[in-house]
């Protein structure tokens, strides 16, 4: 297993370099650049644009800039925002935990709702409540988060003069206020994930229920909760666990829409703003963090199989 871990870390590192270099290069293919952001409505000549790019170090070849960036990273220097001069490391340090928190709450909600939903639906296969549950799942799966989030804010405001809390507070400043702020966007974010979890759980439980050993267990008189919890779920949930691990990544990186609608200062809004302004150091820094997260989480998921199923070997 030790060799497996080392091997995965090596491939992870290579993947990290490839991803970050690819993104770094692709940034330069984006039309428009930071000069337009800095100059606003004011026209400028090519010579003036070149001067600004030179001051910002953007006139160097991509490969040179990448090497310089990696070199700075080795000293913990992520660079500074081209838009407002803030250190990128500080931007990431303040925004990343917010997204983690949002994703974590959404994960808990989507698991707590989706998995039991899926199990119940499987047990009640082809009954009216199974159809109802599947319909709810499809609706939840199909409803875009941006629509749901906007509806949750706008319509209560119009009908009842109420909106969910829209002013972010840090958890260390006010834990209760922070949770009150996060719960609604987490519910919006969790809706689609819960539907996916429910559908996958249902299909996995149904498949497992048809296994020979389950039939044997039934023949021995084991039924109900005991059958499900001790004989079915343990096998059925393995793929679900895999998806949950992947869900974390999806929830973090895909939360940009929910973060924007609910004014959550997470990594998603940070990245969106940076892309809009062509703030290359921030984009590169956030990309690096997300890449580390994705690669690291996949390694952890692979290792977690051993825990879920002791028969798994590497």
């Amino acid at each position, binding site marked *: 297993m030790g060799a497996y871990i080392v091997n995965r870390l090596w491939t992870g590192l290579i993947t990290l370099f490839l991803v970050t270099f690819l993104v770094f290069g692709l940034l330069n293919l984006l*039309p428009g650049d930071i000069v337009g952001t800095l*100059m606003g*409505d004011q026209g400028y000549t090519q010579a003036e644009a070149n001067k600004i790019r030179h001051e910002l170090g953007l006139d160097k070849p991509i490969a040179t800039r990448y090497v310089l960036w990696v070199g700075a990273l080795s000293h913990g220097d992520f660079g500074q925002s081209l838009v407002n001069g803030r250190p990128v490391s500080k931007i990431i340090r303040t925004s990343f935990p917010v997204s983690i928190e949002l994703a974590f709450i959404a994960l808990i909600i989507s698991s707590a709702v989706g998995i039991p939903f899926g199990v119940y639906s499987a047990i009640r296969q082809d009954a009216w409540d199974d159809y109802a549950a599947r319909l709810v799942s499809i609706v939840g799966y199909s409803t875009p988060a941006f629509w749901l989030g906007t509806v949750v*804010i706008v319509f209560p405001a119009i009908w009842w003069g109420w909106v969910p809390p829209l*002013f972010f507070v840090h958890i260390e400043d006010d834990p209760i206020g922070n949770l009150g702020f996060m719960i609604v966007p987490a519910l919006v974010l969790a809706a689609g994930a819960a539907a996916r979890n429910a559908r996958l759980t249902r299909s996995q439980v149904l498949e497992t229920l048809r296994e020979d050993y389950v039939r044997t267990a039934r023949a021995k008189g084991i039924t109900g909760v005991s059958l499900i919890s001790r004989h079915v779920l343990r096998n059925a949930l393995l793929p679900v666990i895999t998806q949950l691990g992947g869900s974390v990544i999806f929830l973090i990186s895909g939360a940009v829409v929910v973060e924007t609608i609910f004014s959550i200062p997470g990594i998603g809004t940070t990245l969106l*703003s940076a892309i*809009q302004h062509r703030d290359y150091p921030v984009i590169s820094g956030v990309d690096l963090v997300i890449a580390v997260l994705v690669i690291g989480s996949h390694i952890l998921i692979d290792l977690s199989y051993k825990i879920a199923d002791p028969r798994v070997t590497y």
Partner: protein
Amino acid sequence: MKDEGVWSRASGRGLSRRRLLGSAAAGGATIAGLALAGCGGKTAGTAKSGASGAASKTPQRGGTLTLSENFQRGFDPHILQATDTGMFGLFYSMLIRANPTTYEIEPDLAAKWEVPSQTELVFTLAPNIKWQDKAPASGRPLKVDDIISSYKRIQTNDPKFINKAYLSSVDKMEAVNDTTLKLTLKSPDVTQLGNLAVFSMKILNPEVVEKAAGKFPAAESCVGTGAFVLQATEQNVGSTLVRNPAYFKPGLPYLDQINLKAFGAGTTDFEAEWAAFIAGQIDYRWVPGQDSQKFEAEKKGQYDLGWTGDQIYFITQAQTQKKPWDDPRLQRAMRLLIDHKEFRDQWATTWFGRGRYSAIFGTATADVWDLSEDEYGKYLEFKQPKDDANKEAVQLLSAAGYTKDKPLKFTLAGTSGNGYQSEMTQLAQAQYKKGSQGALDMDIKLFPTAEWATTRAQGNFEYYIGGHSSGGLDPDTYFSSTYKTGGGRNYGHMSDPKLDAMIDKQRTLFDENERKKAVRDIIIYMMDTCPFGSAVPNYILTATPPKLRNFPGQGPTFKWGDHYENIWLNR
């Protein structure tokens, strides 16, 4: 030497609005035409209506104001557009400023000013001005040299310093003594005094500037002489400001604290912001255009409502350095094909609630300087129905070689940065196609915001339609930036020596009637000859809760942070 004309009346006590706008002191004033209380003259419906209407009470001290604002670009006003620096007035001051309701130039750091000649301005500072008590300024007294330092910084010969044009007439700056600043101009320029009131002309602490080395990212780097101290700020979250206990204006500000909340990142989430206002989570918000008429009808008793002019102007530009866009026949045809009535009654009404005709200006300037809508209606470009204009356009296109059988194919550029601009482009396309009877065949290309700025600046377009911010409300801020040879927003590189001369001339006219005539002559001349056309500028409906007193009112582009010192809460 005392001059004739308005500068001799500009003794620092303020001018009447009519004189101000037609006179030297009017030039470049950053007046947003907000006029919550109404300002007379040719303003469109700026009279206040609604809940309060009562005479002012004695201001009450205390309370917290909560608004929407997201400081994303740092705190250096000298490298930002005026529209990005309005709220910096909360913590920075200027030498002089404009009053948002009376339009008068009024004192700020300068308690009074004198005009010994048409090329000299002498300012006397108010007493007891101190920098805010934050390092490295640490509460020391403001010096005249601090102001000179800021103005010289604005004039830095570096493309990042985009506001240097507002001091282009200044030849010399001298500290006459500890409290007196003298500006000597290169030549008579009616606009220079008002240019000092443009939002970006904030005075920064030299020690902070030196320490910042060009980066002003945080509250620590934000040290001014304004009414409020920026205590804390976090991008995409919000900011907290508290009363400056050492503010040099006795008794001000009234508010204890201002909380600014961010809605969205990059661009503000207007839906969430509006919902927060309806739910009472923020204390002010301008009314979205699509809701304005209904809101005005239903909420008149609950809010103080007023239509205010904006300074955004929507124009078309031909890239005159590319054929066939250097052809005057084609340029005029494009102007004639725009249906301004449809733009006003459909597009502007839908997105903003109200619009008006203008060949050049935003509504706040247009209401004072422009032709009336009836006058515009007499000119072919604006005349209704459009039959005659379209007929002439088709003839011009035919003369230029373009017919239904041999149409001109080109790309009409616009931006997808927001809904109203992309829809404006689509409407223009529809009008061009319909009116030209097939002689124009265009596709649309909508650029995202970051790309749009570069595309325009580098002239990489054939013909575009888009919005611009003027930076100020004096007509010259439009003329010199957009229509004069080499202007900063003259992306299509138009060049008309006669027009340039007319623009230069109006800057030297200190008699308000003469200047108004000169401006009108420019507008009429441009309708006949300008390669650039126009859509329709917009108004904004402002809604102020009754508890909010002396709120200057603002739309999305002009924000009067420097007048928040007068706001008080009626509790």
